[in-house]
């Protein structure tokens, strides 16, 4: 039998194997067909998504749960345009992703061919970098560069667009190098002088706060963060992207600051004299009105991306570097000073924080007869799984409540769409996370509005044997939109009502090969969760019928000062 020639497709698969890829998420189609043939002979597992957006979010969930580069594989045209949302999502949340898209044949590019889109042009605005491969011999080098760029510095999505004829051209394998990247040299080690200056400022602080962002998780710096916070004796706030970077049950943990943050976390920043930003980017959801943000604070800004420093808030001490390496250097510097004494006690500061914690806790009221509050379900779930699960979320009220009420213990257990705010992220991201961490319980906490955007990926979960669990909090609408309409549009509820009866979620779940459950009464919450936890051979969907009128607090209205935290409707 004549041996098949080694083509661009074979080179692509071999390149992915060379990068250590074990799993990818995709949907085939015309232009990418050549790559799907050698896939049959590859050890790489391909998870067949039902929509390219789902494939992209799965790859993100995989990356966020595993710390590895997620890979998505789709065809040209609509296959590529459907990936745009995951690419931008990954860019905003600095998730390492490599997306490979088929392209029409080289000779047809620019001719408005069937399923043609100018993919690299589209991707230019929503990737860290992108490639159009015009020569099959360059595939190994391109893939190697793409993985390097995606995973290093500030991680992010990289797209590789490959015309069909490049995939079918005979080529040969060349072990790739990074010689072709003269302009890409991320700074990872913080400058020693800046680190000394930072430590001096932190040591002299009366009211320091460590403001931690998702960069600490991406850098794998959680252990260093705990060690540093303890050595510096400084309280820690964790942004939405950083939940899990610092254990919530730690004495120094204040929780999430910002628009729907914990009062103590938001207010601690407002009153601090030194703010140490670690892998955070002063997002508008954290700062509120920037001019009124942390008015008394000197700012130390540690980030691997120099463009983040000074972008929103002037940094008194800028430190460019990888969070883990910088934290290590800061710990070392701090401990070398400690030969001469203990950490500053900062008694007044800690009693002030304790007072805020006592007086302004997160709260909600669960009536005995219902309706179920989402917060209550999340707290029960946390208790019943012993806090041991990976949770994903969509975007909106349920996401904020999940971030507020889940007590995170370790990094990589909170997977949500922070920067872009992509509704529909929870279900596919959960599938990616479960694929990466099959031995963990993965629970998607989702809203009914979000669920309706991507639920078809539960067919992927069923058929690919990825038994995720999903709680759909059904409040019959886009809860956060409705909340804003109630608060800022005189209660004129426009286009945010979805109704509670259609679809029938348990039936829908069953139709997709999942187990469908429904809970309406608070008394039944525990038994329903137990039932869901007992099933591990199929995905489970619990419809949680919740209070349609519940609003998410605390709240700082958009653009408002973080000095004015609204604790509940009575404050408005």
């Amino acid at each position, binding site marked *: 039998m004549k041996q098949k020639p080694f083509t661009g497709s074979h080179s692509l698969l071999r390149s992915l194997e060379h990068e250590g890829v074990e799993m990818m998420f995709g949907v085939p189609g015309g232009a990418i067909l050549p790559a799907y043939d050698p896939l049959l002979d590859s050890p790489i597992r391909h998870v067949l998504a039902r929509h390219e957006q789902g494939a992209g979010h799965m790859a993100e969930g995989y990356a966020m749960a595993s710390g590895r580069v997620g890979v998505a594989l789709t065809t040209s045209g609509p296959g590529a345009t459907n990936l745009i949302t995951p690419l931008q999502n990954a860019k905003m949340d600095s998730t390492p992703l490599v997306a490979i898209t088929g392209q029409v044949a080289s000779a047809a590019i620019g001719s408005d061919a069937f399923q043609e889109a100018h993919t*690299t*042009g589209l991707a230019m605005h929503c990737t860290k970098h992108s490639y159009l491969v015009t020569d099959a011999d360059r595939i190994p080098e391109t893939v190697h560069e793409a993985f390097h760029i995606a995973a290093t510095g500030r991680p992010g999505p990289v797209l590789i667009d490959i015309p069909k004829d490049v995939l079918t051209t005979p080529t040969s394998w060349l072990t790739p190098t990074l010689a072709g990247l003269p*302009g890409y040299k991320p700074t990872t080690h913080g400058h020693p002088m800046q680190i000394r200056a930072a430590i001096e400022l932190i040591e002299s602080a009366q009211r320091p706060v460590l403001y931690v962002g998702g960069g600490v998780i991406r850098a794998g710096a959680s252990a260093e963060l705990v060690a540093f916070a303890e050595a510096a004796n400084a309280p820690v706030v964790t942004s939405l992207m950083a939940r899990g970077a610092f254990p919530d049950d730690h004495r120094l943990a204040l929780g999430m600051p910002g628009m729907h943050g914990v009062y103590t976390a938001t207010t601690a920043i407002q009153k601090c004299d030194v703010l140490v930003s670690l892998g955070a980017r002063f997002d508008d959801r954290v700062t509120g009105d920037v001019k009124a943000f942390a008015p008394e604070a000197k700012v130390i800004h540690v980030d691997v991306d120099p463009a983040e420093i000074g972008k929103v808030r002037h940094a008194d001490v800028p430190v460019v570097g990888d969070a883990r390496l910088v934290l290590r250097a800061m710990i070392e510097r701090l401990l070398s000073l400690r030969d001469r004494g203990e950490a500053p006690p900062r008694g007044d500061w800690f009693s002030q924080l304790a007072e805020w914690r006592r007086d302004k806790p997160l709260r909600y009221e669960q009536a005995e007869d219902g309706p179920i509050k989402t917060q209550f379900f999340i707290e029960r779930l946390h208790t019943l799984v012993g806090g041991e699960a990976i949770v994903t979320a969509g975007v909106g009220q349920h996401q904020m409540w999940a971030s507020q009420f889940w007590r995170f213990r370790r990094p990589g257990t909170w997977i949500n769409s922070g920067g872009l705010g992509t509704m529909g992220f929870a279900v596919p991201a959960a599938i990616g996370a479960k694929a990466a961490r099959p031995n963990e319980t993965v629970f998607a906490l989702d809203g009914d509005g979000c669920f309706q955007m991507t639920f078809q990926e539960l067919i992927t979960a069923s058929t690919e044997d990825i038994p995720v669990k999903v709680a759909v909090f059904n409040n019959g609408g886009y809860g956060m939109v409705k909340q804003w309409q109630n608060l800022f549009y005189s209660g004129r509820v426009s286009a945010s009502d979805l109704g509670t009866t259609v679809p029938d979620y348990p039936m829908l779940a069953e139709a997709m090969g999942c187990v469908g459950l429904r809970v309406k009464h608070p008394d039944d919450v525990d038994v329903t969760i137990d039932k869901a936890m007992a099933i591990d051979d199929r995905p489970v969907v619990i419809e949680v019928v919740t209070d349609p009128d519940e609003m998410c607090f605390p709240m700082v209205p958009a653009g408002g000062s973080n000095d004015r935290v609204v604790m509940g409707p009575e404050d408005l």
Partner: protein
Amino acid sequence: MSQHTLSVIVEDKPGVLARISAMFSNRGFNIHSLAVGPTHVEGRSHITVVVDAPELEQLKKQLHKLVNVIRVIELDQIEALESEVMIARVACDPTDRGTLGETAAMFTARMVDLSPTTMTFEVAGSPQHLSSFVENMRPYGIVDLVKSGRVAMKRLSEVAPVAMGNPT
């Protein structure tokens, strides 16, 4: 809003210019002038960009973030060697050719085209040199005018020469 000149060394790869101009528009900066060309080093291009921006720090950092960008240098007016080429078509009756030609000669402008009603000059030099030329041609009536983008390089000599305006 002030004008800044940036000298950007990039890899000569497809799409580099598109990435750079996209970054400018994404971040809300307005490009005043842009010139691209190869350097003496194989695979490297030099982009000179004149931009209207209140401050440059963020812009420079965003440029640096582009994978194909190798070096970004901000040039202030004193330390920049700047040059542009312009072709200007000026209205001119045959009787005026003498005086117009004399004026043009003062700017070392070269006549490149002649018609019964116009004279067309090519002139190169610093931006100030070119604008001075334009001012002196204006009374005759400028019919058409095209400029290359500005190219610039850092000056190494300590003291700027007196005749900054004249390239020859």
